């Protein structure tokens, strides 16, 4: 179709007096509006599928490590731009994705098999072609199996790293011995009233409530006792933190002396010279993170990016940057000098020493527990 000739014919009709000036300009306006509406979105859609992939992660030092060691080198190599966004938590991100158009969000750095199951439950799961991700053979089977047990026969994500939510404490005020002796109960120790912190995440609060009441976090038998522990912690705590940056700031500024914390963030604080200790209590909260590909994403480009990110050189550099051990099997890949020193690192590649949240158990209780926590947090 030749639009120029159409325009010329229209102009001739106007000049010949066949159509009024108002009609002529109305038609031009309609064409302009149609062009304006169509072009930017078509351009965006094409760019999304061909030349860029959206990645969302946890922000802070984690995103910095991804950008520096994975995205920028990948873009330089492939020409595919990685647009990276951040979120403070999996719940917030899930709400965003649910409200978005299919394909708007592509890859997310999700935490825990329970998150993988939730996204799958909302119909957001894609199906990866693992033939396009040969580096998957280097990943610990223990991590892969956890995800494939949720979606038998297919995977929507590749495991990428793991860590723990343990106890962080300021050594100026709390000794290593005291921490080991008190364990999770230090978070409900009245001696530290006003100097205790905690993550505002309901799962973590309940998990630590279970530890404080001597229960198995994956099989809580007395939830009322757990809520009482959560209330005690609430009344002693100065602040519930909402992001890794806030956690690091509260500890570094000595607003709080003790809190549960993400292992990698505490390692980063230690690297910065802060005398902050880190301790994983028995049954501490372990989690495995994955790179989840949303349904409707450009699969070829996403698989290529995932394979690049699982390449040992990339994966080790990212792990060293974000301070979380990679999903690569240490019995198959030489992980270098720094990674074995990271908190939660498992040299056996079995992860048998870590306790992960049972996705069926936690997702099954999510509706009730998340709502109850909102009330307990506010004094009920």
């Amino acid at each position, binding site marked *: 179709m030749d639009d120029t000739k159409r325009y010329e014919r229209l102009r001739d009709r106007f000049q010949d007096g066949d159509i009024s000036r108002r009609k002529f300009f109305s038609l031009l306006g309609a064409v302009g509006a149609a062009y304006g509406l169509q072009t930017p979105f078509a351009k965006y859609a094409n760019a999304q599928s061909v030349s860029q992939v959206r990645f969302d992660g946890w922000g802070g030092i984690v995103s910095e490590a991804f950008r520096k060691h994975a995205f920028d080198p990948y873009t330089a190599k492939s020409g595919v731009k990685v647009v990276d966004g951040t979120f403070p938590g999996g719940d917030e991100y899930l*709400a965003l994705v649910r409200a978005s158009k299919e394909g708007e969000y592509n890859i997310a750095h999700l935490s825990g098999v329970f998150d993988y199951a939730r996204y799958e*439950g909302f119909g957001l799961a894609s199906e990866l072609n693992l033939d396009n991700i040969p580096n998957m053979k280097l990943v610990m089977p223990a991590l892969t199996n956890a995800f494939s047990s949720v979606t038998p026969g297919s995977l929507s994500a590749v495991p990428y790293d793991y860590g723990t939510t343990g106890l962080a404490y300021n050594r100026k005020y709390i000794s290593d011995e005291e921490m080991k002796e008190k364990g999770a109960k230090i978070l409900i120790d009245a001696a530290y009233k006003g100097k205790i912190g905690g993550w505002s995440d309901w799962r973590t609060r309940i998990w630590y409530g279970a530890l404080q009441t001597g229960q198995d976090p994956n099989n809580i038998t007395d939830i009322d006792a757990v809520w009482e522990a959560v209330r005690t912690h*609430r009344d002693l705590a*100065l*602040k519930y933190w*909402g992001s890794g940056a806030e956690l690091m700031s509260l500890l570094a500024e000595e607003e709080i002396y003790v809190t549960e914390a993400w292992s990698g963030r505490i390692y980063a604080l230690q690297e910065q010279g802060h005398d902050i200790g880190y301790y994983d209590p028995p049954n501490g909260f372990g989690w495995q993170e994955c790179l989840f590909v949303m349904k409707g994403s450009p699969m070829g480009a996403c698989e290529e990016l995932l394979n690049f990110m699982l390449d040992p050189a990339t994966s080790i550099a990212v792990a060293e940057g974000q301070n979380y051990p990679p999903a690569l099997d240490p019995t198959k890949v030489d992980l270098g000098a720094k990674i074995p020193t990271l908190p939660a690192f498992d040299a056996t590649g079995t992860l048998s020493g870590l306790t992960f949240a049972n996705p069926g158990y936690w*997702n099954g209780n999510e*509706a009730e527990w998340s709502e109850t926590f909102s009330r307990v947090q*506010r004094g009920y």
Partner: protein
Amino acid sequence: MSIEAREARQPWILLAPALSAIFLLLIVPLLFIVVYSFWLRSAVGADTPGFFLDNWKAALTDRFYRDILLNTLKIAAITTVACALLGYPAAYFIARSKGNKMILLIMLMLPFWISYIIRTMSWINILGVSGALNSALIWAGIISEPIQMLYNETTVILGLTHFLLPFMVLNIFVSLDGIDTSLEDAATSLGATRWQAFLQVTLPLSLPGLAAGGLLCFVLGAGTYITPVILGGPRDAMFANLVFEAIIRQLNWPLGSALSLLLLMVLGVLVAIYNRYLGMAQLAKGLG
């Protein structure tokens, strides 16, 4: 078409873009929220469409929501009073200043150039245990150990006052600026002291501006979400935080919709009362 008919159409033509934007970007999403509020949640999977009153019943009868709503209104009211007490003298000073009025007004606007979140977070650097105030007090020998000032309801009110004060000052300023200063002079020439002239002439005439600023501060304060998150402790929350938690954390969009509509209705009633007694024209002047 007659000239009268054309003139009658003209305002609607001019208003059409704004009305279209309001309809598409406010009314239509609001209707979606109304519909959603009658659905039922599903923790994993799609919500259940239908006409269920469960969310409304919870929002209207549950003590938890009522208490947080009342606390929200209390915090908004305290903030509004604080803004009025702090804002009136500032507005009066600007309105009565000669020559440098524009500079003062620009200085009043300056905070708007900085993100509200950044402005709120600045209090952490001021009131934190290693913040400016504690450091200054320790340096001056007034205290030996830092005082814990952050993360409580007072800091939430402080942060909100910081955020809302310019709205109050602007509204009062507009009102004061329109008052003929010779009225005060006339009052004093008739034997009133300056204070009496202010109390009996200037203050009553500036009340519409004070009320408009009060309404703005109250509505914006009651709808705030970020201040309690940044400056509040574990218990501190306002109603908007519950809406956030219902929608984002609990993925309970239907309940979150009902809660957000409830807050909208409560604030709408306050605006309607204001409009009944003072009219919206004063508010428009203040915003203009």
